[in-house]
């Protein structure tokens, strides 16, 4: 087993460089180390100026997403031993503006996420005294998969459509909209349909399917979008009927 492995890390220091450059670091190769461990080793021992986001280091917080050898990955789940011979290329998430080194700006995603109303919408709030909204295991099952999203944005970096059409609402936000649409307690499907049927909504998606492959939580955003297209098309056909829903 090799003693060390080379990491080629994208550096962008806006006060120094006009565009990112790669800097190579040699870190100990350990079987139980993930790329995030290597980055922390660099930060602690080799170069304290390297900037990157991370928090839970266990695939829950969704902060440490980066491009590892060209693939969007949670660096806390990308083992050094799975990345081939090296040097391992680490870059910031693709299609997002880079603030510094491996840190990207996520404002665009946060804005889009909020736009699809990812919360339970009720026409009228049920008084507390009436108790909780009950749900059967089958009803939970209908949306549970989509609720596993940790907002890590790997799916956006996997989606060439988002790269080409930055206005596209994008995989995670649509999957989360679908998560609430399919929740038996929610009544906001109509409001979300208006937003998701817009030009930058579901119809921008041409079903590349890479978002689903990139998702570390098996949310299947591609599935959510295609299923939503069926819903939206069915709704449109209904509006054509004389007694259809308007």
């Amino acid at each position: 087993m090799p003693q060390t492995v080379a990491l080629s890390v994208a550096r962008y220091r806006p006060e120094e460089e006009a565009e990112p450059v790669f800097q190579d670091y040699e870190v100990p190769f350990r079987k139980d180390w993930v790329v995030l461990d290597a980055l922390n080793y660099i930060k602690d021992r080799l170069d304290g100026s390297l900037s990157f986001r991370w928090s839970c280091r266990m695939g829950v917080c969704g902060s440490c997403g980066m491009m590892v050898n060209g693939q969007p990955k949670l660096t806390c789940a990308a083992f050094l031993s799975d990345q081939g011979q090296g040097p391992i290329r680490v870059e910031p998430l693709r299609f997002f503006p880079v603030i510094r080194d491996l840190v990207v700006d996520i404002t665009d995603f946060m804005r889009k996420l909020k736009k699809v109303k990812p919360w339970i919408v009720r026409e009228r709030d049920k008084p507390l005294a009436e108790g909780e909204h009950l749900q059967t295991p089958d009803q939970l099952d209908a949306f549970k998969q989509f609720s596993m999203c940790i907002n890590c944005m790997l799916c956006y970096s996997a989606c060439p459509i988002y790269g080409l059409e930055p206005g596209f609402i994008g995989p995670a936000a649509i999957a989360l909209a679908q998560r609430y649409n399919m929740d038996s307690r929610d009544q906001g499907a109509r409001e979300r349909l208006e937003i998701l049927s817009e030009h930058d909504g579901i119809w921008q998606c041409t079903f590349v399917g890479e978002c689903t492959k990139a998702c570390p939580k098996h949310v299947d955003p591609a599935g959510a979008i295609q299923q939503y297209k069926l819903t939206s098309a069915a709704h449109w056909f209904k509006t054509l009927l004389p007694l259809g829903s308007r």
Partner: protein
Amino acid sequence: MSAGAHYTPYHPKWYRRRVSVWWWLESRSYTGFVLRELSSVAVAFFAVVLVALLRALARGPEAYARFQALLASPLVLALSAVAFLFVVFHAVTWFNLAPTAMVVRLRGKRVPDAVIVGSNYLAWALLSAAVAFILLKG
């Protein structure tokens, strides 16, 4: 990046990489996707050929014979062969994607992906057999 993306203003030094024109060559799945999109041109080609064939048929035996001769020319044959490969690619890739787009539930249980893909192929085989039967026996 085009207009339409909303980022926090006053950060002129953020680095934004342009998407290369050749992005679809970056990975096999992107290339496969673009080929799948392009395959719709082949589907349209066969649709146009079919409509033209019907028009020739309506114009009488001579027009029909002329159209058949055109179809048998090497250029159109080569074009048809390429279009055929694209149409097969189109069918196979879309069939394989069907379970993602269609969630079928039977008695509360989600029908396995393999069953949905399999039933598509089965329908394809049955219809092809029916068409072959009509053409060869008729």
